[in-house]
Every structure is written in C-alpha cells, then in structure tokens.
C-alpha cells in the first residue's frame, strides 16, 4: 500500500516537472518580455510549438548517423530521470536513494555528452562550434557544481537530496558563509548550464555567439521537440534544485496527508514563480558576454565552490 502510494507520488512528481517545464520556460519569457515592455508570447506557446514540431516531418541531414536520431531520446531520458530525482513538493521519493546529487550531476553530464556528440554528427562547422564551446563551459561548470555539492554534503553530512533538504529545514542549518557562497556559485552554474544570458542567449540564432542552438541546428520535427523539452526540463530542474536546497520550506517530508501535499505543491509553484522572475530580471539587466569571458565567469563559480568547501573542511574540526 505504502509502496503504491510512493509510486504514485514519484510518478506525480515526474509528470509534474514534465508538464510544468514548458510552462516555466514560457513564464520566464513572458516576464522578460514584460520587463522589456513587450507583451510576449502566450504562456502556452511552448506547448503549441512542441505539438507543431511533433506533427512535422523530420528533415534529416544526409550525413547524419543513427546516433543523431537516438540522441534526442537519450538526452530526454537522462534529463527527465535527473529531474524526477529532485524533490519538488515532497521529499523521500521512492527512488531518491537510487541516485544522489552527484549522480544527478552526472546524469545531466550524460545528456550533455550526447548532445555534444549530436552536434558533431552531421559534420558541419556550426555543430562543431556549439559542441566545442559546450564542453568547454561544462568542463568548468561541472567541477564548480561538484564543489558546491561538496559544501552542501559536508554541511548536511549527506549527498542525498532528501537528507539535505530535511537538514536545511531543521534548525541546525542556520546561516553560514559556506552556504551563501554555495548559493551564489550554484546560481552561476545554473545560468551557465542552461545557456542563459550572459553565457548564451536561448533566443538567438546569431551564428557566432550561440552555443546550445548551434548544436541542435540540424534537428527538426519530433527530434527538435524532444531537445526543446529536455532544455526546459533542465531549466526547471535547476530551479527546483535551488528551491529544494536553499528554500526547502514547505516541502512535505513524510506521511503525506493531502493538506500538506497541497501546501507543498503551492509552495513549490511559488518558488518556481519567484525563481523565474528573478531569472528574467537578471537576464534583462545584463548583456551577453564574449565566449572567452565565460571561463572567467565559471572560474569564479569554481573558486566560490572551492572556497565554500575549504571553509567547511576547516571549520569541521571546530
């Protein structure tokens, strides 16, 4: 009985992030447009886009291999699994112990690995540019992310998201310098990972500045739909992660009774709204940076992470 309920909660979370993901993307766009005094597209525009892409035929480059066609599914699967492991409105997910935070990062890494390969598959120069820049960004973002995870893990004594979230809600957590450093670092990483301004501009197709879009340039139809969905999933994943780690209030922990579930859900939606708003605000207030400034940006994130970890290591003895 408990098992079935756990299954249900797990499934609900998975479906929730899947359905919310395009909406969240649309929400960020909308807020951005509003901040720029535009009206912006409708909130359900991404769903429409996805549906249209699904209906269209796939135009496949002649030099594309089987890997090119498999990659969207792999990327989607990896991202979705990662996203489903992040507690949104309830911790203690059924499969939460099957992967901890490090594994979630690694799953996202897998998705990126295959995306970069897909960028190279057709054998065009733009795909190469995209992949090349993507792996460069990742090579700094991943360690930065891991260092932040270290900090959190050292504070909470666990790499398990549920445990960390539970710890954060408890009184022990308090305000710590390491946490603040970690938060800033994580935000920077999240921006870089999701290809937001100032690292990349998700809305642009200007050849020489794009990263993510360059990789998926050859995709069309249902493949592109999956890629887009994965990108939205990744964005919501990071926001959920930030919410779960640094704003864990409202997450319902165990013994799910409907009222608390509803509270959790509402809190989660609130956090998403806040996160999206802040993201849009940030993006509209800053210009995109040159590609070769990115390492400095991410290097700073890595240093923050390392500093936070060091602080933890040093203070653990006291």
């Amino acid at each position, binding site marked *: 009985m408990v098992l079935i309920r756990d299954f249900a909660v797990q499934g609900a979370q998975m479906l929730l992030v899947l359905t919310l993901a395009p909406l969240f993307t649309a929400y960020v766009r909308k807020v951005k447009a509003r901040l720029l005094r535009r009206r912006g597209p409708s909130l359900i525009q991404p769903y429409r886009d996805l549906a249209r892409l699904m*209906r*269209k*035929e*796939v*135009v*496949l*480059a002649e*030099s*594309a*291999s*089987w890997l090119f066609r498999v990659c969207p*599914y792999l990327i*989607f*699967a990896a991202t979705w*699994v990662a996203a*489903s492991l992040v507690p949104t409105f309830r911790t203690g997910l059924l499969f939460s*112990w*099957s*992967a901890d935070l*490090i*594994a979630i990062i*690694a*799953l996202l890494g*897998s998705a990126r*690995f295959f995306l*970069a*390969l897909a960028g*190279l*598959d*057709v*054998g*065009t*120069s*733009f*795909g190469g540019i995209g*992949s*090349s820049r993507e*792996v460069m960004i*990742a*090579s*700094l973002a*991943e*360690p930065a992310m*891991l*260092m932040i995870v*270290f900090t959190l893990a050292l504070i909470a004594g666990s*790499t*398990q998201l549920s445990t960390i979230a539970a710890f954060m809600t408890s009184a022990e957590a308090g305000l710590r310098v390491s946490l603040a450093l970690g938060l800033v670092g994580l935000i920077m990483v999240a921006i870089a990972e999701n290809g937001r301004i100032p690292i990349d501009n998700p809305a642009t197709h200007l*050849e020489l500045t794009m990263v993510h879009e360059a990789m998926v340039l*050859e995709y069309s*139809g*249902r493949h592109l739909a999956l890629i887009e969905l994965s990108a939205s999933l990744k964005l919501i994943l990071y926001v959920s992660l930030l919410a779960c780690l640094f704003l864990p209030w409202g997450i319902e922990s165990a013994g799910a009774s409907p009222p608390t579930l509803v509270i959790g859900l509402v809190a989660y939606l609130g956090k998403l709204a806040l996160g999206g708003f802040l993201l849009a605000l940030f993006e509209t207030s800053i210009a995109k940076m040159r*590609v070769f400034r990115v*390492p400095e940006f991410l290097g700073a994130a*890595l240093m923050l992470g*390392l500093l936070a*970890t060091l602080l933890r*290591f040093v203070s*653990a*003895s006291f």
Partner: protein
Amino acid sequence: MLTVILACAAALLALAAFAVVIVRYAAATPIIYGMTMIVTAISLAAAATPLFGAEPAAMRTLPLGLPWLGAHFRLDALSAFFLVVVDLGALCASLFALGYGTHEQAPQRVLPFYPAFLAGMTLVVIADDAFAFLFSWEFMSLSSWALVMAHHREPGNARAGYVYLTMASFGTLLLLLAFGLLAGPGGHYSFEQMRAAHPSAALGALALVLSLIGAGSKAGVVPLHVWLPLAHPAAPSHVSALMSGVMTKVAVYGFIRIAFELAGAPAWWWSMLVLALGGVTAVMGVLYALMQHDLKRLLAYHTVENIGIIFIGLGLALAFKTYAMPFAAALAFTAALLHVFNHSLFKSLLFFGAGAVLTATGERDMERLGGLIHRMPQTAFLVLVGCAAISALPPLNGFVSEWLTFQAILLSPQLPTWGLKLLVPAIGAMLALSAALAAACFVKAYGVTFLGRPRTGAAEAAKETDRFSLVAMIALSAFCLIVGIVPGVFIDALAPVSSSLIGAHMPPQIGAQWLSIVPIAASRSSYDGLLVFLFMVISGALAATAIHRLASDRLRRAPAWDCGYPDLSPVTQYTAASFAQPIRRVFGSLVFRAREYGEMPPPGDVRPASLKVEISDLIWDAVYAPIASGIGVAADRLNRLQFLTIRQFLSLVFGALVILLLVLAIWS
C-alpha cells in the same frame, strides 16, 4: 589455486618458446592466441575464487631465483584481485588478437613476446619476495618493450622503445633500492620477513618515496609519465590495451604492496604526497590528452589521468589508515581498486576500438578520420560505450568508482591534519575538473573519429572489423555495463582485499535494497546503477513510444542545413584541433605555453589563411631535456679522454699513483 596459476604462468612461458618455433607458419597466430586464451581463462578462474570464497593466502616456494631464498609466491586477496584484472584483460586481448593479429605484418615480432608479457604480469602479482617481484617486473617491462619495438620501422617507435625501457629501468632500480632498504643489510628479501620487520619511520618513509617514484614511473604518474604516451601507442593495439589497461595496474599493485603492507605504519605526509601526485596526474593527464590528435596517444594520456584518479583513492586510503579510520580507508581503497578494475575494462575496450579503426583505415590521426559510424556501426557503438564509461557517465562503471572516490573525499573533513584538510578539497576539485575534462576529451575523440563525414579516402573506405574483435569488444562493454549496474557484487568481491590491507572493508552491498550501493549509510549516500539504468531505459522507451504513437514519423533526407551555409567539403568540419581550441585557450596557455599564430589575408587576397599552434611540453622541457643535455655534455667532455696520447694516459696512471700515495701518507 596458486599451483594452477603458477602452472598457467609456466604454460605462458612455454607458449612463448613454442611461438619462436612455429612463428614462420601462418597458423601460428590463431594457435598462440587461442592457447593464451585458454590459459588465461584457466588462470582467471583460479584467481577469482579467492575473491569470492574467503580462502587463506596460499604460499609456495620454488627452488628458483636467489638460491638461498628460492622464489616465493603467494596468492592473497590483493594478488588475486590484480590477477583477475590481468587475466581478464589478457583473455579479452587474446580474443581480440585472434582477429586483429591476422593483419599483423610482422607476427614473428609479436607472437613470442605476447605470452611472455602475460607471464611476466602474472608473476609480478603473485611474487612474494623482492627478487621474484623485481625479476618478473623487469621481465614484464622487457617483453613489453619488445612488443613496442614490433613495428620498429615506423617513425618514432624506436625512440618510444628507448624512452620506455630506460624509464622502466629507472623505476626498477628505485624499487630495488626500496627493497634493499626494507630487506636490510642481512638481505631479508622475502616479503614475509619484510612484513615482520616493521621498519623504522625514516626507513619506511624513504621506501615509500622510492616505491612511489619507482612504481609511479611504471604506472605513469606525472612527471614520470613521459614514456607512456610514446610507448603504449607504438605497440600493436591489443598490446597497447594490455599495457594501458593492465600493466599500469600491475604497477599500482606494486605501489599498494609496498605502501600498504611492507613499508610499515604510514606517516601523515605520505598520503599528502600521494594525493598531490594523484591530483596533478589526473588533471595533467587529461589536459595532455585534450591536446592530442593521435587516437592511441590520446588514450594513453587518459591512462595517465586514470592513474591519477586511482592514486587519489590510494592517497585517501593512506590518510584514513594513518588516522585509524578503517571504514573510510576501506571506502577509499575500494574506490581505487574498483577504478583499477573499471579502467582496465574500458581502456582495453577503447584500445581495441582504436585497433579496429587502425586496421580498417590505417590511420591513427583523428584529423584524417571521420564518419566511421556509417562504415563501422558495431565498432562505433561499442566504442561509444567505452567513451561513456571512461567519461564517468551513469549508469556505466566509470561513474561508480569515481562516485565512490567522491564519497571518500566527503569523509575527509574528519581528518585531523591541517595539511590534509586544505589539500583534500583541492584534490576533490582537481578530480572533478579531470572528470569533466575527460568527458570533453571523449566527445572530441569520438566525435571527430566516428561522427561527421569522412575526411580522407581511407576513412571513407573503412570496413567493419572482424568477428573476434567484435566479440572481445562486446564482452568488455557488457562488463562495463554490468559493473555499472550491479556494482555491489564487485564491491563485495573487493572486501577481502581491503580487509587484508586496511583491516576493514565496506559493508556488504549484496543485501542492500534493489542492488544499490551504500558506502556508509543509506541516509548519507547511495547509488543504484540498476535503477538508474532501468529508469533511463523506461523513460527513453516511453518517450519513443509516445512519440511514435502520437507524432508524425515521417522522415526526409536532405543536405545539412548548417545555417544556410552548407559546404559539401568534409574539410570544413570541425577538426580535433579546433574542437579543443577553447579548452586550449583556457588551460593550455598556462600549462603548455600554447601559442597560436594566425594569419588572415585581407579581403580580396586569395591566399589561404593559416593557423599554427605551438604547444610545448613543460615537463619534458623542465625535467627531461636538461637531463638529456646534461648527459650529452658530460659525455662530450669525458669523450676527450678517448683521444689522449699515450703520454697523457701515462700521466693519468702517474697521477692516480701519486694521489693514492698521498692518501696513504695522509691516512696515518
């Protein structure tokens, strides 16, 4: 079991001799590789049993080697584990070579040495006295040197062999010094006596440093790695696989044997030394690899990286052992050992893939390959598995061991030493960095080699490789997946090893829920490869079915879009060099003093633009070049003594006489 293994080693040696006899016949290749397969399979079975059934260590002394000592052999858990690594690698390599070996131009230069090399590695891990150990160790180097020299007429290979054997000899001599120290003036060379001797702190420390340099040079620890990327690619590919995947592990074995067992109680700085070396090795190895366009050399540099990861694990284990934290030590140690096993799997797999590419195209330079996924789909798939595994992507095996290493790092705040407290996070960052860079590197390697469009006619004309090679690669990729999804089984098999050296082992994993692994406690961290795998399969399948059910499945082939600039020439593709350019800019200018010289003709000028990249190997320049030139200068100076006149030679004698008489006069 030890008897069986010794018999197998003897059989391998006999095979080597037999190969000399039959090498002129065409059937020699299948016979020799077939026989080595059988022998290594038997040896593998014999070696695996002690890991799963806790048997006491078996010992045996043969009347060989040092006469008053005899050759001691011992099969304990550690030996058994490394023997499994050796034999599994050898088994797959032999299988691969059944197909690959038929393309060999000079089988007479490979067949006799191949079984000898295997025998050497087998004997190293079961040797139980210093003489037998170093004897087998150097024999292993020697036979692999002969294999490196198999294609001696290819440019660079002679130098590779030279640097290799010189460095190997250097390492052996240092190990010899270490053993000399541990054996004491009385010459107690058997490990039994050394274990009982409990060396003093200074002695143990010196032995540790010597063994770190000695075994480290064989394993490829930076800055002693220079021979590795030269020698490993020079050998035939199945041998490259063995050298990279297995022989470096034998070196790790040597280090473990000395550092954890023979050198006595560790001092606090031992682990710092090992950790620092490991961290530097990991990062430098992967950065070197990123700069490479030669497929096999890139793989060889990745071996350096992985050795770094293994040494990080070992360093952590030493640190925990120093401060009597047995469970943490067991975790770190198990992580290192598991990585040893994993690396032997995927590195062999990748070298086999490189070998298949080499046979199909005759090219090792990635810039002259491309699009092989169309011509060699099976190889491409299997190599992809290997690339994903070495890039530590879940749910494959590489991730498991790196995950365990991270978990061990997370335990280290409890270490009381300040130096370690500061070093370990930095090492963690380096580990993370190297893992991320490794993924970048394999995107490059795989993407440029297998994806895109063929860059040369050779790549276009490639054919799928033979069945034996494919079977070997399939077996290895299956292993990569199995270790990745049920790591608990393998961790449990390592328990006797870590109990024998650390005195503790990780909690049993088999009983854990859903076959997940729980290093310490479920609330702390856990990972379940099987579930992640199933999860991914199910969600991927779900997406695929949903899309194929609901969405259009029409598909049309068309020229690539490429933002509207399609250029049909494959030359316009991204090359390996251009792919690595951003990373080279970020790291290379510091680490390799990389400089780019670009020349762009002004518009209207029809000259081609040019870009030249200069990379200097600072380690070579700073360490090895001065040594080489120093020896050259000394040799030149001393060489004048060859051209003296008889009178001047007489003056030397006279001078010696006078000096000795003076010594005599002053002595009293």
